[in-house]
């Protein structure tokens, strides 16, 4: 099994969610993080101009069976990309085992 972690723009979340749904990936967890990257945002507050690269992003953690890896990545890249700097990243790592808490069973079948 693989863990696909994607860091995306918050405004792209519902598009990505639908794209994942369309390819059959309905199970994942997400939360909000702050990201440092190439993108900068300029602001003015009470006359002080400042630019920050600490931008709010959404972090998706999706554990999939190996044969879903490519499909999932493709769906995210296509739906989350705007072409502007700051679209985010995807990281893939290995998951050794997984369990469904409700039943206690383990293995790839528990992923949905």
């Amino acid at each position, binding site marked *: 099994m693989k863990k696909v972690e994607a860091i995306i723009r918050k405004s792209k979340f519902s598009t990505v969610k639908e794209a994942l749904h369309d390819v059959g990936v309905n199970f994942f967890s997400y939360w*909000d993080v702050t990201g440092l990257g190439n993108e900068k945002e*300029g602001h003015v507050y009470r006359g002080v101009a400042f630019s920050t690269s600490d931008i709010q992003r959404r972090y998706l953690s999706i554990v999939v069976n190996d044969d879903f890896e490519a499909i999932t990545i493709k769906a995210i890249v296509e739906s989350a990309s705007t072409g502007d700097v700051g679209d985010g990243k995807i990281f893939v790592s290995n998951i050794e085992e997984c369990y469904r808490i409700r039943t206690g069973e383990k293995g790839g079948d528990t992923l949905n």
Partner: protein
Amino acid sequence: MMICTALVFFMHLGFSLLEIGLTRQKNTLNILFKNIFIITIGLLLYCLVGFNLMYPGNFNGFFGFAGFGLDAIAAADLAYNEGYTYWTDFLFQGMFAATAATIVSGAVAERIKLIPFMIFVIIYVGVIYPIAGSWKWGGGFLDQLGFYDFAGSTLVHSVGGWAALVAVWLLGSRIGKFKDGKPQAIPGHNVPLATAGVLILWLGWFGFNGGSVLSAEPGATSLVLVTTCLAAAAGGVAAFLVSTALYKNFDLTMFLNGILGGLVGITAGADQMGPTDAIIIGAIAGIIIVFAVSLIDRLKLDDPVGAIAVHLVCGIWGTLAVGIFGAMAGWSQFLSQLIGVGAYAVFCIATSFIIFYVLKKTVGIRVPEREELEGLDAHEHGMSAYPDFRMNEH
């Protein structure tokens, strides 16, 4: 009177909290900015032109003006000698004026462009509202016709409500509000503030209705306060019972809207009703609210805070109720009320349509999609309302 003015002023805080409470966190600053703009510019405009448009003295009954621009102020400067009523009156009415625009602000929240909205406010508060007001309170043709509106169910609430309806229709719904034609829930981000807003509004109504007695005669004023409070209570309880029966859950926002509906409903006839009448009017307003909110959804109109249901629908109901209940009830009065409602409908729909349509075709009235998704606060204000809090955006 002066205290009532202060309370009416305080209603702006109530509106602001209610509106931000029932919308999403990412547009909070934008809504507050609009409302603060309305209060401040509203007062200045009312000083500049509004007051003399609304109370023109002798006029043809449809449109009159006691002097323009800064000249009006100069004129006023003389008139100030007439005594305190002039001053207090101006301020009290000036606080009212802005209210009509605040109603619109809530309905168009989360997607309207700031500058076009400001232009609308300037025209509507500066010109349209005072003209509309002069028809009745300025002694215009509706006043002569026998139309009655004690404290503004029509003159304030419907005038705002019609413009809200037109604006919502021209503007379209928020992204995500309708999916495959079915309305979706977009919950408000801070219900405690919305609740505080409603209680502050109720408090403000003590001043709004109490002050509209335009005298400190304690008998009349205290009766008005009693009818006001009973209608509010009845509206809330009715809305709570109906919405709980229909939807099988205890929806606080409906309860709150019911209270407001009751308040708006009693406003036209607060001094004409006994307590029993007030309770009935309020309760019917509360029931109306629940159905109106879901009707507006079904019409694919997107009104995040329920402004149209509260101010327009209950405003009409309250105006008509003057012909049905209380001291003035009667067929001919009902007809006068109907004519009044109709006259305001035509005038407000027409003028607000022209304003918003011209704005839409020229500068545009809707923010770009990305701005709407990421929030107006980030784009138009470059800030967040709650920068220290971690959000769950949707």
